[in-house]
């Protein structure tokens, strides 16, 4: 059945709306401070809003080991956050999967009215304050917080969660533009967009107070700028998108540096391509300037790596130990699990899915290799051109490299893999990743002369993610926090 333009746009709008509404529902069912590092990010936002002159009593000398991990009211957070955390009984939910908070027989919590009417001030008294390095996300969040300063903490907190959701919904719009630009059919564009919408981890993290939501947006804009550049050549529109999204990424989170390197790569490529048009003097000057910027950027970045004060043998040993601990099937399965949002309850259907997903990734990888080496006439028309595929591969691997290098640094300092590589770190390249799976599997099916099966596989994947998405909402989150 053909899909006309009007219908295509209407379904795309429906998909974006679904993501937003699902996000609002998830925002609601996830209790306060249960998002990833949410209390710390929210404290950062409140800290930015504090007056510069501290007129209240400050107690210094606190440290992490003076805190009870289960009890946020013992953390170095604002008085309002500590008081709310205690009165909303978050201590019954932290590091504990067997209890809920104490519910009342009404629509208001036990201490809700007290928190609404007599909240403590949103100022930090325990120093050093526990905050994240303030980023653009926190500054935007602090504007929302400021505009609602007369409202209770529930209005402020959940409004900032919705801000995160809006940022990720916008990023989904850019994903839609990207999919349209790389030449996918209308149907496949919509299915991949819907797969992104039903990917449970993206929806869940989109509702957290966390700078990852702005990072996802910056990557999404960058990817769109990148494919536009590949389609049209350099022009005002795509260069603006690329530069602005890179700046946005850097101002948001350390991982944003990945975009700088890719942008530099694009500039290099473009300069070499156009070098013939300029006089030798100018082109050499540009190249020297670019190399200097690259060296400067790289040397700045190496300060954050465990290579600056080490000799080569020590670097190799350290890297080898890190690789042994992190590059194995178990570690990949763990990353895959948190990337796809499978929450590890004893659910027979989802329990082994992480291994299936790693296998699909592996199969796609083989497919991509075939895709790059077979004659282009043998590849069916519905797969995007190689230049887009190569760009997606670079995006995915660059982010992988960035995250792994940061992980290696942590391992080198502590001897512990720490958080490892949680799947959420890779969500900024979710859409290129889905496209690569599509291309990889599409190539294999194409080689096997059963390319018609691809559209059915896409729809079956959609059904699977639909199931996982609702399973995580109903049978995991609602069950865990409200029905135990």
């Amino acid at each position: 059945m053909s899909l006309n333009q009007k219908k295509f746009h209407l379904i795309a709008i429906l998909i974006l709306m679904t993501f937003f509404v699902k996000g609002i529902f998830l925002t609601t069912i996830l209790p306060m401070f249960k998002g990833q590092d949410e209390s710390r990010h929210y404290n950062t936002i409140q800290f930015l809003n504090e007056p510069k002159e501290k007129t209240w009593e400050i107690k210094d000398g606190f440290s992490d080991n003076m805190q009870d991990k289960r009890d946020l009211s013992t953390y170095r957070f604002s008085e309002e956050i500590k008081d709310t955390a205690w009165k909303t009984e978050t201590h019954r939910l932290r590091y504990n999967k067997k209890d809920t908070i104490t519910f009342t027989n009404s629509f208001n919590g036990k201490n809700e009215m007290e928190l609404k009417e007599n909240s403590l001030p949103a100022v930090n008294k325990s120093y050093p304050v526990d905050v994240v390095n303030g980023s653009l996300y926190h500054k935007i969040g602090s504007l929302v917080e400021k505009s609602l300063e007369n409202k209770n903490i529930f209005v402020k907190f959940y409004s900032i969660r919705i801000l995160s959701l809006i940022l990720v919904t916008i990023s989904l719009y850019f994903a839609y533009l990207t999919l349209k630009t790389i030449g996918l059919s209308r149907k496949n564009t919509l299915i991949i967009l819907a797969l992104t919408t039903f990917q449970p981890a993206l929806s869940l993290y989109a509702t957290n107070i966390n700078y990852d939501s702005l990072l996802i947006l910056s990557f999404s804009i960058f990817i769109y700028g990148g494919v536009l550049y590949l389609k049209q050549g350099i022009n005002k529109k795509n260069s603006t998108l690329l530069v602005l999204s890179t700046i946005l990424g850097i101002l948001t989170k350390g991982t944003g540096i990945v975009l700088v390197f890719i942008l530099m790569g694009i500039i290099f490529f473009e300069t070499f391509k156009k070098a013939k048009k300029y006089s030798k003097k100018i082109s050499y000057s540009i190249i020297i300037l670019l190399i200097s910027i690259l060296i400067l950027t790289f040397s700045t970045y190496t300060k954050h790596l465990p290579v600056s004060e080490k000799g080569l043998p020590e670097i190799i040993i350290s890297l080898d130990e890190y690789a042994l601990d992190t590059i194995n099937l178990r570690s990949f399965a763990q990353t895959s699990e948190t990337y796809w949002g499978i929450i590890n309850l004893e659910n027979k259907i989802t329990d082994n899915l992480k291994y299936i997903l790693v296998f699909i990734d592996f199969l796609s990888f083989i497919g991509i290799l075939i895709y790059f080496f077979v004659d282009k006439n043998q590849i069916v028309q519905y797969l995007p051109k190689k230049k887009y595929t190569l760009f997606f591969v670079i995006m995915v691997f660059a982010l992988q490299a960035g995250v792994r290098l940061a992980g290696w640094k942590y391992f080198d300092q502590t001897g512990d893999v720490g958080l490892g590589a949680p799947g959420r770190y890779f969500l900024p390249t979710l859409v290129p990743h889905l496209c690569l799976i599509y291309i990889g599997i599409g190539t294999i099916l194409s080689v096997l002369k059963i390319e018609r099966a691809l559209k059915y596989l896409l729809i079956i994947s959609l059904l699977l993610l639909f199931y996982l998405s609702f399973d995580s909402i109903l049978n995991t989150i609602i069950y865990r926090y409200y029905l135990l």
Partner: protein
Amino acid sequence: MKKFPIKIILILGLIISISILTKQFLGLINFSQSEIALERGENLKAQQNQTLIQKFTANRDGLFQIQFLLKYCNLNKGDEIKMELFDESCSKKIREGLLIKTHFSHNEGVYNFRFKQIPDSNNKTYCIKATTLKNKENGKIVRFYTTENSYFKYTAENTTTGERTLTHLSMRPGYKNENLYQDFKEINQRISQYKPWFLKHHAITIFFLLMSLSSLGTVVLLIKNL
């Protein structure tokens, strides 16, 4: 040759997914006495063929399950614990069944005793007998945690060995309402707590319906236009 009805099969797949999700969710509905935290205090052994007794008073109608916190229990590898619910005098049996696993059995050691709902349980005192029918040979002895928090005024006892504790078993009764409408209303109440005005009560119902309808609409339209 007649075309393979793939779209119908996909729609059937969607209906089956929704049925599984709904069945699972309805099976999870339970309103525990949420003030009770399952705590790990002293533990009480329950070797094979030994029976523990614990009394408790229900605080509302619709009693239908009791959760227990156990230290060692491996139902997968052959441990089996029979549960019986008696009246206050421990003489008239009301319900019986086996202890079963929950989502959190593996990590947290929470196990369930589920039975047919008792509609008029409010303020009534019941007596539970837990008998270890099988305890895997060479395995660890089944142990029930007790708690120092006195949610119930009765203490636990191993009637076979006579071992008594000054505390009661770490356990939590669960209830259901008379019908699904009341269950959903109570879920809505629980979710509404500590939420801003725009994410409370009717807003939750509206967002849930919008989410479900738009998700279903998306999947159906994509299958239809395949």
